[in-house]
Structures are given as C-alpha cells and as structure tokens.
C-alpha cells in the first residue's frame, strides 16, 4: 500500500483540573492516497481529537502524524477541515468566505480573475452559486455546510478532514450532501478522513471504517473494509447483503465495545496497556 497519511503510535493526554486525562493511547493507521476513511465510535472516545491531530490543531503527546513522509507540526491548507458547525465567518458572504481561503492559498499563484473563477467553480461543485451573495445567517444549515465544504475544497487539499459534517442536518439534506460528497471525491480523488456517529453514513461513504474503542485511552478496536463497488447508490445498497453485513458488524462493535469497556475499564485515568491489549491491537491492525 502506498501510504499517504500515517498515524504512528499516537498517544494524547489532556491536562485537566483533576489530573491528566488520556484520550488516545496508541493509534496506528496507514491511509492510501484517495482512500475514504470513516472514524466511528462512541461520544467522547476521541474521534475528533484524531482529526484535530491530523489537522495539526493539536499536538500529540506521543507519536505523530506523517503526511507524504513528513511529520505534521502545524495546521495548513493542504489538510483542509470541514468543521462540525460549518464555522463560516458570519460577517462575510458565501462568496467572501470561500474567497478568504482562495486568496490565502492561491494569492501568489493565480491572477485575480483566475481566483474568482476558482471560487465560482467550487461553489458550483456544491451547488451554491445561487446564494453567493448571501450571508451565513440567511441560508439554511445544509447550505452552510455546503459552503464549508466548498471552502475546504477550494484550498485544493490533499487530505480533507470532515468532523461530523452532516451531524446537525435533517435526514434528507444529509442524504443529498452525502451523495454530493461521493460525487466530488470520485472527481477529485482527495484522501478523506471523516468522523461520524452514523453507521449508515460510514458504510455508504467509506473504503474502510475505523472503529475506536471507548475512551479513556481509546485505540483502534477494529477496522472494517467496505468492498462495495462505486458509484454507490443508497437505495440499491439497502438490500445488498454485503452492505447489511457491514452495517451489522459496526453495530455489533459499538454495542460490544461499550459493554467490554464497562467491565475492563482501567482504574487510573492514564490507561496502562496490558500485554494482552497490545496483542489485540496488533491483530486489529493486521
């Protein structure tokens, strides 16, 4: 496998008033170029922390993130992030929000006209051209999230990081945006890392679904390969045995993982990795 992005033995501790909290403990993952990876797990298990580490917004306590053979030390537009709550600047129009990213990333390489065309192109990709002069508070939640995606895509990132991008949306809007995202990825071939709560979303979109154990000291519990042919159609897949099986696998993990944690929770907040757990981790990562 030609590794594009590697998470190498990542441990992440947070300092809290009640001592150190170990969020992640030994995350290992290799991602190929153009792969779509979903991170799924219970709330608070550290999925978003993984994403923030790849983005460079957080610095790992142990181990590191490697992109194209180089360690990530700071955030950068080549690892664009779509935030959970869109994070558009409320005082700028849709166009200006995307323009902020484009002028920063392409200010020196593209002419003004080229930049404008590029902004228009990305708004077109997410079907938001009609609202280019509206402000975020004048458009719906789904539209805001589209603009957030357009802004991220406009940075022409190698890796697209999505933090529960469709979590706050109604089912219909979510389905539309998931289809758009598949379409866009098929066209642009970005490597995508997406955090989600939604089992169907994970199976539908991903090449691999990475399931995290319950924290503290979360690590990868299991990885599920989703070998469904693309382009994928949600209606056709609903009856597909492979799809149903994948879905069941994840659900089983989520329910088992939860109860396993309750019985085997480490006493100290900083989890000590037992030999057995290490072994299990090696097995899980192949």
């Amino acid at each position, binding site marked *: 496998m030609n590794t594009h992005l590697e998470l190498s033995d990542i441990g992440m501790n947070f300092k809290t008033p009640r001592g150190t909290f170990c969020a992640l403990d030994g995350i290992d993952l290799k991602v190929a170029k153009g792969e779509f990876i979903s991170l799924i797990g219970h709330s608070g298990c550290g999925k978003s922390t993984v994403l923030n580490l790849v*983005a*460079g*917004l957080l610095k790992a306590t142990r181990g590191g993130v490697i992109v194209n053979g180089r360690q990530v030390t*700071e*955030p*950068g*537009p080549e*690892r*664009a*992030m779509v*935030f959970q*709550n869109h*994070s558009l*600047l*409320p*005082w700028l129009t849709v166009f200006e929000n995307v323009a*902020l*990213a484009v002028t*920063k*990333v392409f200010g020196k390489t593209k002419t003004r006209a080229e930049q404008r065309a590029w902004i228009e192109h990305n708004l077109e990709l997410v079907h938001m051209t009609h609202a280019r002069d509206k*402000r975020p*508070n004048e458009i719906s939640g789904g539209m805001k999230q589209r603009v957030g995606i357009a802004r991220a895509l406009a*940075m022409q990132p190698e890796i697209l990081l999505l933090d529960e991008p469709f979590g706050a949306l109604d089912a219909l809007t979510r389905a539309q945006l998931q289809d758009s995202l598949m379409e866009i990825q098929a066209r642009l071939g970005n490597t995508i890392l997406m955090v989600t709560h939604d089992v169907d979303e994970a199976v539908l979109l991903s090449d691999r679904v990475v399931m995290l154990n319950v924290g503290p000291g979360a690590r990868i519990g299991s990885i599920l390969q989703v070998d469904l042919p693309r382009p994928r159609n949600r209606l056709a897949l609903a009856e597909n045995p492979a799809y149903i099986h994948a879905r069941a696998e994840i659900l089983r993990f989520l329910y088992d993982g939860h109860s396993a944690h309750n019985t085997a929770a480490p006493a100290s907040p900083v989890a000590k990795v037992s030999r057995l757990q290490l072994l299990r981790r090696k097995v899980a990562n192949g």
Partner: protein
Amino acid sequence: MATESTPPLAPPNAARNLWPGLSEAASRLATRTLPRLLLPLLGIVVVLVLWANIAMRINTSLGALPGPAAVWQQAGNLYDEHVAERTKARAFYARQQQRNADALVEDPQAEVKTRPYTGKPTFIDQIGTSLVTVLSGFALASLFAIPLGIAIGLSPWLYAMLNPAIQIARPISPLAWLPIVTLVVSAVYVSDDPAVSKSYLVSMLCVTLCSLWPTLMNTAVGASSVSADLVNVSRVLRLGRLTHVRRIVLPSAVPMIFAGLRTSLGVAWMVLIASEMLAQNPGLGKFVWDEFQNGSSSSLGRIMVAVITIGLIGFALDRIMLLLQRAVSWDKNAVLR
C-alpha cells in the same frame, strides 16, 4: 316575497362586515399606537405635572423653583438672545468690511485689520463647543482604546500585566483628574499662538481619560472571545498575525466594540459637563456654572433649560450610537435597544 325579505337582513350583514375593521383598529391601538406613542406622552405629562406642583412649593434664595412654563419661557429668551447676538455680529463684520474698503479707497497701501467679533458666546454657541469637545475627546479615547483593547484581548500576558492598572484607573472621577490635567496642560502646552485654548484641551483630555475604559474593556473581551472554530479556520489557512486580527478578530469583536463605544460616549457626555464647569471651557458646563454664579431671578430657569438640553443631547447621542451599532452588527438576531 323572498327578494323582499332580504333588505331587512342587510343591516346586520353590513354591521358584521364593519366589526372586523373596527376590531382591527382597536387591536392596532392596543398593540402599536398605545405603547409606542400614547404611553410615553402620558409619562411626560405626568412628569411635567409633578414638576410644576413640586416646583411651586420650593422657595430658593433666587425665588421659586421654576416650573415647566417658566423654563419654556427662558428657552425662548435664550434663543432670542442668540438671534440678537448674531445680528450684532453681522453688523460688526459689515461695519468692519465697510471701514476697510473705505481705507483702501483712500490709500491702497493702507494696512487693514480684520478683527474677529468678540461678543459673548450664546447658549447655542455653547452647545456647539460642548459637542466639539465631547466628540474630539471621545474620538481620541476610541483611537487609543480600540487598538489597546485588541492587544489586551489577544495576549493573556498583556491582560495580566495591565488589568490591575486599568481596574484602578477606571473608577476615577473626572473631578479628580482635572487638577492634574490642568497642571500638566499648563506645563506642556506652551505656545505663543495656541491653535486651541487650554480650557478646551483640559476638558477634552478629562473626557478622554474617563471615557476610554468601557471601550477598552469591551474591546478586550470581544477580542478574547472569538469563537474557537473561527480561530481554527484561521490556523488552518495559516493567516498571518495582522490578517488574523483584520479578518477574524476585529469583525468578530465589532458588536462588543460598539457596545463599549456607546457606553463610552454616554460617560464622555456626563464627564464633559463637570470638566467644563471646572476648566471654564465655554460650553454647557460653563454656562450652568456662570448662571449659578450670576444668581439673577432668571438664572434657575436658564440652568434648567441647560439641564434639559444636556439630557436631550445625551439621548440623541445614544440613539445615534444605537443606530451605528445596529448598522455594523453582523449578528442580526441580537436585540439591541
């Protein structure tokens, strides 16, 4: 027969059609006209009646406390004095011009002098002086407070360093600053041909010193409470420090900054009157003080005119700031009143 029986039914029908119109008018009266127009008017009338009744009963060394009617009359007098003074000024300049022209006809080499009219400033002039003083002091305070507030908001170190000093300086009364400012201005502002008078400078600086705090504190809070998500956007884009401030921090703090500016202008206007009284800057404060020292039978009425004018101008300034605040606020859901 059937057609003949319809006319008697018509009036009730018409009445039914009339009712919705009437009830609509009534509900409009109850929901809009009454609270927006009639109630405030009623409140003012109550205040005027109370004022008139209480004023009658209080006798001062300058006679009875003037009621609304007496004050209204003095307002008229003050305006007439202003008009009279303007007429005199125009006549003075006309005479001077005539005199100079005549002198030049007699001798083209003659040195003609143009002197400004030196009549005493009228009430209206004093309002103008006060407005100029307060606005320049407020502008100076804002120019200083906004950048410093941004810096303090962005740097926890700077905040920790300056916060105690700010908290101590904030509650100091203009009356306490005044002697210091007066002496400092006298020592530092030495010029043979001063562009502005010392009394103006003293009043303005007192206004600045007292009115910069609300803007400073609000700006600091605004700059420090930029949403973490927006800060992350800025980090992912690797925006430079200045671009970050200009594109993210400043716009995000604008509602807070303007809330601070509005409070500051209110404080500035309050402080101005006190400092004009003491610094003898020819504005409304000095007007009140002079009338108080003058002690004629009309003085109390004239002071009251000034007091009401001060209130009305303060109110107008606040409304203007509110409109500005609404215009620049990107958070259209916020209720500003």
